């Protein structure tokens, strides 16, 4: 750069005053469009005949994963000029530009025995360049959905620059039966509602499961004894144990700490509810709040230094933040209505919450100082937000009104767009979104 300056100086000195070049045209663009990015995903090439079905299924699921984010829009294959038959072949960018594809995903699958391999590439069509390099996954044929999700995660990450959330699971409460005799049991599913499996039976009322940071365990509240108690359940073995509390004390609303070794939770005694922190290994517990009001629904910040919780110490439910070891709490919610069930986003910059105002429920987000509050949903009863592992999507419970009211899971982008139900056959509530699987 110095050289260039020198040259420039010399030029100026020796050439004397010359015609000044007009500077570049400088403009600022402040308005853009917000629209799904169109992508094309021609059917993955089947490298052998056994892979025919898998290739088609994989392509469908990848396209569906991406489309469901609301950030991408699939261009129907019927519009394609070229079908990109062979995985290795040169990409005819002009053909894809002509159909307005901005991203192109190509892939190939092969099946050998029960082994399935899938490889794929992602292209930025208008730049005429590949995004990243080709990647290959191998697994079993029956695990094809996870492989498709992994492909989707990689594609998502290459296009958006952020990690995906497709290869993740959600633990939730499966609901059945009428409102006054509702049966609830813990269940786990893929993020998209597939592969539902039960973790408990419906003998006892269970509430609000919470995944551990690594997704190996689940904390939940059980009424097995007739009193709310916290259980911890190992996902793989479905083994569970109860966290002990003194008789007369009822514990609920648990969440893991980031290291998975501690639990923050609510404990009720004598009509008063406060927040505690307990160590899963030593059993030691510390009381973090000391107010005569209801303090509950604690959620740790991703760095573990702060806790956001709800309290009605002001007279109505509001959100507060305190240090991870308790102490002075600062109120952060000041809008109309009541605020509850706050959850700190994995990115750390936002807090999702349930808001109740004028007879309606909302899921919303605000910055951690309470500013920029945005309500994302509105219905008769929305509650219990949980964040996708990348902090981009919120899943929550929506309950319909009336005697036949049922609960189901919904998800919404944090921009407030792309509200959609999670497809499940049956009632569901209290989702907790686990981490991206390894």
């Amino acid at each position, binding site marked *: 750069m110095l050289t260039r300056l020198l040259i420039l100086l010399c030029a100026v000195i020796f050439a004397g005053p010359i015609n000044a070049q007009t500077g570049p045209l400088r403009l600022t663009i402040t308005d853009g469009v917000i629209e799904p990015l169109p992508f094309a995903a021609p059917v993955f090439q089947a490298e052998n005949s056994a892979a025919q079905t898998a290739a088609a299924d994989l392509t469908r699921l990848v396209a569906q994963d991406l489309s469901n984010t609301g950030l991408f829009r699939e261009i129907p294959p019927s519009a394609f000029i070229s079908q990109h038959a062979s995985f290795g072949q040169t990409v005819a960018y002009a053909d894809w530009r002509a159909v307005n594809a901005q991203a192109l995903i190509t892939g190939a699958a092969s099946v050998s025995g029960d082994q399935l391999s899938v490889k794929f590439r992602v292209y930025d069509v208008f730049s005429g360049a590949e995004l990243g390099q080709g990647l290959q996954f191998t697994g079993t044929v029956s695990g094809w959905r996870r492989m498709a999700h992994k492909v989707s995660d990689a594609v998502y990450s290459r296009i958006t620059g952020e990690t995906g959330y497709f290869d993740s699971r959600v633990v939730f409460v499966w609901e059945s039966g009428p409102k006054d005799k509702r049966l609830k049991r813990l269940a786990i599913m893929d993020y998209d509602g597939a592969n539902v499996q039960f973790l408990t039976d419906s003998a006892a009322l269970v509430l609000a499961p919470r995944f551990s940071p690594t997704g190996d365990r689940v904390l939940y509240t059980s009424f097995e004894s007739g009193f*709310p108690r916290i259980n911890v359940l190992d996902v793989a073995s479905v083994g569970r144990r109860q966290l002990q509390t003194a008789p007369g004390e009822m514990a609920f609303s648990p969440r893991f700490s980031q290291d998975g070794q501690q639990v923050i939770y609510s404990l009720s005694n004598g009509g008063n509810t406060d927040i505690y922190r307990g160590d899963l290994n030593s059993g030691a517990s510390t009381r973090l709040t000391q107010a005569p009001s209801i303090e509950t629904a604690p959620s740790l910040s991703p760095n573990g230094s702060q806790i956001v919780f709800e309290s009605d110490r002001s007279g109505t439910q509001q959100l507060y933040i305190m240090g991870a070891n308790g102490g002075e709490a600062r109120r952060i919610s000041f809008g109309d209505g009541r605020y*509850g069930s706050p959850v700190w986003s994995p990115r750390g910059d936002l807090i999702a919450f349930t808001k109740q105002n004028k007879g309606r429920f909302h899921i919303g987000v605000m910055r951690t100082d309470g500013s920029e509050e945005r309500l994302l949903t509105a219905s008769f009863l929305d509650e219990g937000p949980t964040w996708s592992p990348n902090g981009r999507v919120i899943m929550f419970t929506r309950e319909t009104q009336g005697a036949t009211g049922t609960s189901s899971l919904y998800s919404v982008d944090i921009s407030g767009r792309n509200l959609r139900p999670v497809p499940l056959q049956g009632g569901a509530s209290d989702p907790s979104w686990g981490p991206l699987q390894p």
Partner: protein
Amino acid sequence: MHMMTKMAVVGLVLLSAACTRPDRFTDGSNVGGAGGGLDQAGVNDPQSPQFFTQTIGDRVLFSSDSSSLTEQGKVVLAGQAKWLTDNADYLAIIEGHADEQGTREYNIGLGFRRANAVREFLVAQGVPETRMRVTSYGKERPTQICSEESCYAQNRRAVTVISIASLS
């Protein structure tokens, strides 16, 4: 004075709690306080659980987001206290409930508040602390299923569920 009571109460609870199983109270259907399984006598027998649940009334109602006892509620609870005093073999679990207008966690806390308000009243009426336990179901166990105030009013309740048991 109040403090002393509380300390005594805490001591008693700790002592009694240490030697009673919490789930002993809850065999059968405690949910909704129907008093199922306690049918050894008729509604008119003042010693019968049916008399307690139906004639005296096993529940008191609350207004929205409140745990204050109503005058009507206090009359019911006075009857409950008398019955429990007369029938010393019975233990009671007081269940707090909330209507569906509220978040899950908060409603559990609110249910505890309501149950505790009942317990404190009964204690003040002379029912030994050691014979009572409180729990809360939040909004999980409504008795009425419509989404209107008429149903909500019935669901905002504290139910005294009695069961026979002897103290260790």
